């Protein structure tokens, strides 16, 4: 359950960015999380809601978008997104190589934008 500490870090960043923009009211915060990152969206939403209640962020909407895992085969160079739920054990659809894929994306966890008014 590290979503609590992720929510904490998220709130700190939001406050930091709001201060740069005249502390306008937060309407929406958009978070992107890669499928390989260890974030449970429901848990993060819950933590965000609990931690913003009775603060000036109360009512702000947290929008989360999962980005897929994209791998590059080390043998043939093909880029692909594994379908398996674990996103781990995925042979290359081009040449069948099982080992040593490069992770091009899927690990990210960042704020994409804030909507202020």
């Amino acid at each position, binding site marked *: 359950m*590290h979503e609590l500490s992720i929510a904490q870090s998220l709130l700190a960043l939001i406050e930091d960015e709001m201060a740069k923009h005249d502390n306008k009211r937060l309407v929406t915060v958009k*978070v992107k999380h890669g499928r390989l990152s260890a974030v449970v969206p429901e848990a993060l939403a819950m933590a965000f809601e609990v931690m913003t209640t009775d603060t000036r962020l109360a009512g702000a909407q947290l929008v989360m978008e999962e980005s897929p895992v994209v791998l590059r085969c080390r043998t043939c160079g093909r880029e692909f997104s594994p379908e398996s739920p674990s996103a781990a*054990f995925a042979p290359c659809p081009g040449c069948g190589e099982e080992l040593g894929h490069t992770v091009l994306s899927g690990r990210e966890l960042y704020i994409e934008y804030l909507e202020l008014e």
Partner: protein
Amino acid sequence: MQIPVVRNILEANTNVADTLKTFFAQKGILVLNLMSSPGAGKTTLLERTLTDLRNELRMAVIEGDLQTDNDARRVAATGAQAVQINTEGGCHLTASQVQEALKSIDLTGLDILFVENVGNLVCPAEFDVGEDFKVALLSVAEGDDKPEKYPLLFHISAVMLLNKIDLLPYVDFDMDKASRHARTLNADISLFPVSARTSEGLTAWYDWLREKVRAKRA
């Protein structure tokens, strides 16, 4: 008004971890972040390692595992310095906690600092604590599907120790499957099948440690 931000949510932790990395680099101390499920054998492996290499290397341990509250005492019994972090129910260690714990450690002449993370295969993987390498420990008692279920941990670890191989005759564990899955996203991971109980296989792990200490000092 939409404001593009694109900031890593964990940047505060990453910043502290980077500060620690610079500090450890100056001191020439090898730092290893030890991660596993609860009970996979982290503390037992540390007890063995600290005992077997004590005439050769200076080592200290930061204990973040509260599964058993006597982990720090078990480790200290080997003669090595050990500091217990109170994680207050947290599921992972943070770089700031490690920074704080450093105040209680005499770093003079230290070769290796082990950080025993909280027993958990998910959360610690997201939080750097200033380590040179992450070391994942998997016991054969917990199933060969772990690397498949927790790809991130095995993807970012330099080493996978397969512990409790003394139990292989009694459990259904496919070594080949576990290592293949670990190497899917990490071709270079070093795999060491070991038993922290019988000491089988530990020589390869010790050689890896010696090599990394040498590289860090250079």
